[in-house]
């Protein structure tokens, strides 16, 4: 059933032991993602040099979906161009709104495909992506509701 797909083991593993869950002191870009409706807060950190994301991390208190999504996203971002990062955010959102998207491109992000069936949780999954874009745009905080 779709609930089991939402909370599949691979997603829960990212929640239990998230990758890149730390405050990056050397970050060149950072922004807070704030889901005003539920209180989820994620700070996303990027280390960017010459339009390439050397590494990404996050820190915060959020639900399993938001945490897993941030873990997956920060892994995916490492070594990518900022252009790819923006394209990744778009592809991820397309997936959640049942629009065509490049499955191969977003890699492990497809683990969260089942979120599309839970409209009230889409903001949880996209929170880190919105924060990442805000960081690239030089915005300190982004609020989703």
């Amino acid at each position: 059933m779709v609930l089991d797909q939402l909370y599949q083991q691979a997603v829960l593993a990212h929640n239990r032991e998230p990758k890149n869950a730390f405050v990056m002191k050397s970050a060149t870009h950072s922004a807070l993602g704030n889901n005003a409706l539920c209180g989820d807060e994620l700070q996303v950190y990027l280390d960017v040099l010459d339009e390439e994301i050397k590494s990404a991390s996050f820190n915060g208190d959020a639900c399993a979906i938001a945490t897993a999504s941030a873990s997956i996203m920060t892994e995916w971002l490492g070594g990518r161009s900022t252009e790819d990062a923006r394209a990744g955010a778009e592809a991820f959102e397309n997936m959640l709104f049942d629009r065509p998207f490049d499955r191969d491109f977003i890699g492990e992000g497809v683990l969260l495909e089942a979120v599309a069936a839970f409209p009230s949780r889409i903001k949880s999954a996209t929170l880190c992506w919105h924060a990442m874009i805000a960081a690239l745009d030089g915005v300190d905080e982004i609020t989703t509701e």
Partner: protein
Amino acid sequence: MPQSDLHNSAVGGWDVGAIRSNFPILSRKVHGKPLVYLDTAASAQRPSVVIDAVTNFYTGHNANVHRGVHTLSQEATELWENARESMREFIGAASCREIIFTRGMTEGVNLVAQSFVRPRVGQGDKIMITAMEHHSNIVPWQLVCEQTGAELVIIPVNNRGEVELEAFAEMLDEQVKMLAVMHVSNALGSINPVAKMCRMAKEYNIPVLIDGAQATPHLQVDVQAIDCDFYCVSGHKMYGPTGSGVLYGRENLLEAMPPYHGGGEMIRTVTFEKSTWNDLPSKFEAGTPNIAGGIGLGAAAQFIQGIGRENIRTYEADLLNYGTRRLEEIDGLRIIGTAAEKASVMSFIIEGTHPHDIGTIIDHAGVAIRTGHHCAMPILKQFGVVGTARASLGMYNTREEIDVLVAAVEKACVMLR
């Protein structure tokens, strides 16, 4: 569990099956499971008598109120004014002139903030609320403070979720021009000692507004016994229609206040030079009101009185004790809000899980709870959490439903950990 086995619990002569039969929605299924509705603090379900009152108005009597000489208009006016009388009786007001129909509790607070408090405060004055207030009893006062230079001061709440009465007593002085406090906390369930607080405030001639949104569905409310100056009622929290509510205000205070909204109904005469105001309560009911909603609210008040608020209180207290005990059996669960006097609300967090994930998972077991900050962000911050899962009770809930909740939460914990 078959539907028929779910609701046989009878406590102290209370026939919850008969109560439930008043609420058509309770027979529906969610994700193939019987609905277990534990979100009454967000919005109660409606009994047939309320739904019928609304339908009956639209199908048999629909017209504007206080406007026409024709039969329908007179019937609509009579139904509307009868609903006002039902609400007067329900909260123990002395006169129907003190009962103003509103869109809900929020409008009542804003009306008092702008029409009563704003003209009376300035620099150096204080408006006092508690740390546990709902955003609707915080933000309207912040607006007045911004407009006037008055200061918003906060009565502390202890770690059980009780108002610190000693600190409150020390904070009272001549500069406090308004006290606004919730009767029952939506986030914690605490029942605040509002009558006592009113007595303490009266020693300094401080007017008091009570947010009664979470009280009227669960407790006997008598505004004269509480001796408050204003009392705000939300219709949809007390089994009435959304967009309905009542503001009670002392007649002498309402008389002295300027209108809140201008428009039709609230005037006596209008010229381009000057208008004069209608009598109470019309002075505060500008425009065509939510007539069907008000009539439905009157039906809800009669419905609750027919069942008896003492009976409801006794039954729900038993259910709250049972639910609290059962939830505390869950490994790592912590109840947020453990006041000695509580009503209807079980707010909790579970180590290693997030409320939203719990809420999503148990929805698939048919269980509806609220997750998040419950529009009370400051008090949750005090408890060190950004959100909780909240199961809240109504007269129709059963011990068996609590068991379904607990089993579903346990299953969710297994899934998430």
